[in-house]
């Protein structure tokens, strides 16, 4: 573990410089080399280990652990739960992605206040956020399994339809929608390749890498974070964490890219 952290520190230091004008993105090349060195390992393992501890630890006003949390496959079942989200949860009467669901359990089982959960959803390199640890733990337990996102419940269909419409909605001073950048094949912003998230093939590839360990920021980012930052690039105001709009967009992408093998937290630029 110690060796890995040292390697990581050295490599991230080398990669945080500006992107140079080269045909092959040096960051991508660097990440490929880094992947080779680590083999199957990934710095997200640190998050996973912390997440497992947090999951089992009694906490919150109700002094309860999360071990009885129902992620969709029954109370306490973590393995395989991630590949079946986002899904409709009858107890909450809404469609939730896994990040929203874990937070729902923190509120309902542990009594953590919604205000506390909203205070700091996205961590920083030196100060991770608890949800990033918890989520990494939960998703890692589905590594290697096939994405099997349920699509039959009327609310799951409704979420897909809303997500698709939000994805295509042009607004703001630049008239952008998600589809402006992710609605055609083989587009790039500078040298960054943009998946066509309206198509199964690209959506599959993009979706199964999240949450992701980003080398440029040296930390794990969640899909809720990814959507937040893309709405920023769209020049819109900030989408509310765990809101219906964000969950619908995630549901749209997940259902579009259903069926691929979940890869666990990927390394990204």
């Amino acid at each position: 573990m110690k060796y890995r952290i040292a390697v990581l520190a050295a490599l991230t230091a080398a990669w945080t410089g500006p992107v140079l004008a080269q045909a092959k993105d040096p960051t991508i090349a660097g990440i490929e080399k880094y992947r080779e060195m680590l083999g199957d390992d990934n710095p997200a393992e640190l998050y996973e280990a912390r997440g497992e501890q947090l999951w089992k630890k009694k906490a919150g006003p109700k002094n309860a652990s999360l071990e009885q949390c129902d992620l969709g496959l029954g109370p306490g079942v973590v393995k395989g739960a991630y590949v079946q989200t986002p899904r409709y949860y009858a107890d909450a009467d809404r469609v939730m992605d896994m990040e929203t669901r874990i937070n729902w359990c923190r509120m309902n089982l542990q009594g953590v206040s919604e205000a506390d959960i909203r205070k700091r959803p996205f961590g920083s390199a030196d100060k991770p956020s608890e949800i990033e640890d918890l989520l990494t733990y939960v998703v890692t337990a589905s590594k290697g399994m096939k994405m099997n996102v349920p699509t039959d419940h009327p609310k799951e269909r409704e979420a897909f339809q809303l997500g698709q419409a939000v994805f295509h909605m042009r607004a703001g001073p630049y008239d952008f929608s998600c589809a402006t950048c992710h609605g055609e094949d083989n587009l790039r912003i500078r040298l960054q390749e943009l998946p066509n998230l309206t198509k199964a093939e690209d959506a599959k590839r993009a979706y199964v890498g999240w949450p992701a360990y980003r080398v440029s920021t040296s930390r794990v980012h969640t899909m809720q974070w990814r959507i937040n930052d893309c709405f920023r690039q769209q020049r819109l105001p900030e989408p509310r964490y765990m809101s219906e709009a964000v969950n619908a967009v995630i549901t749209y992408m997940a259902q579009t890219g259903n069926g691929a093998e979940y890869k666990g937290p990927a390394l990204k630029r």
Partner: protein
Amino acid sequence: MKTEKQPTLSVALAIGVATALMAGCATDRSAYNPSPEVIKHAMAAFKRDFDAKGAAGLDRLNTDKLQDVCNATNSKPSPDMAAVVEREQEAAIKLPADGKFLGDWKAGEKLAQSGRGMTWKDKAGIPNGGNCYNCHQISPAELSYGTIGPSLLHFGKTRGNSPEIQKYAYSKIYNSKAFSACSAMPRFGHAGALTETQIKDLVALLLDPTSPVNK
């Protein structure tokens, strides 16, 4: 447009909505044919689920007529409808009062490189960049360019440097939608993202014979 009376925008919109409604029955889930109800639902989610942050206020969720047309048709308006909105956008273009279109290409290159501006992280009061390299190849030396827009390498060399081309380039950057109703390119002048001087510098980058774009 061959008919005597040109359709008003609301008529054009009604046609579009009717077409969208008919197309809404398609069963292919990957195809997107928005019905007015779906758009209304998405608009409501936008208004409910976003918070103002930095320079990005909630007013940015209020779509204008052009955005409404593009949203109702998944950015594929009928030719008639496109013609109507393109004329409306064109009518709102403010050309430079001094009649000059060419600024300083060196300043233009800096602007084209800069991707800053108008996100909630950008501080208000600092001039915006053009974001041009995010989407276009422009100068031959810059290999880190995007592909959402066509290559503009040798733009002046191939199009010439006539007053008409200068006016076109200025107008295109000022309001891309005057030429292509639902273009992916922002309306930089129309939206107040770039100033007259900045747009002139960008026109010079594209058209000045001494600009690296035309070497």
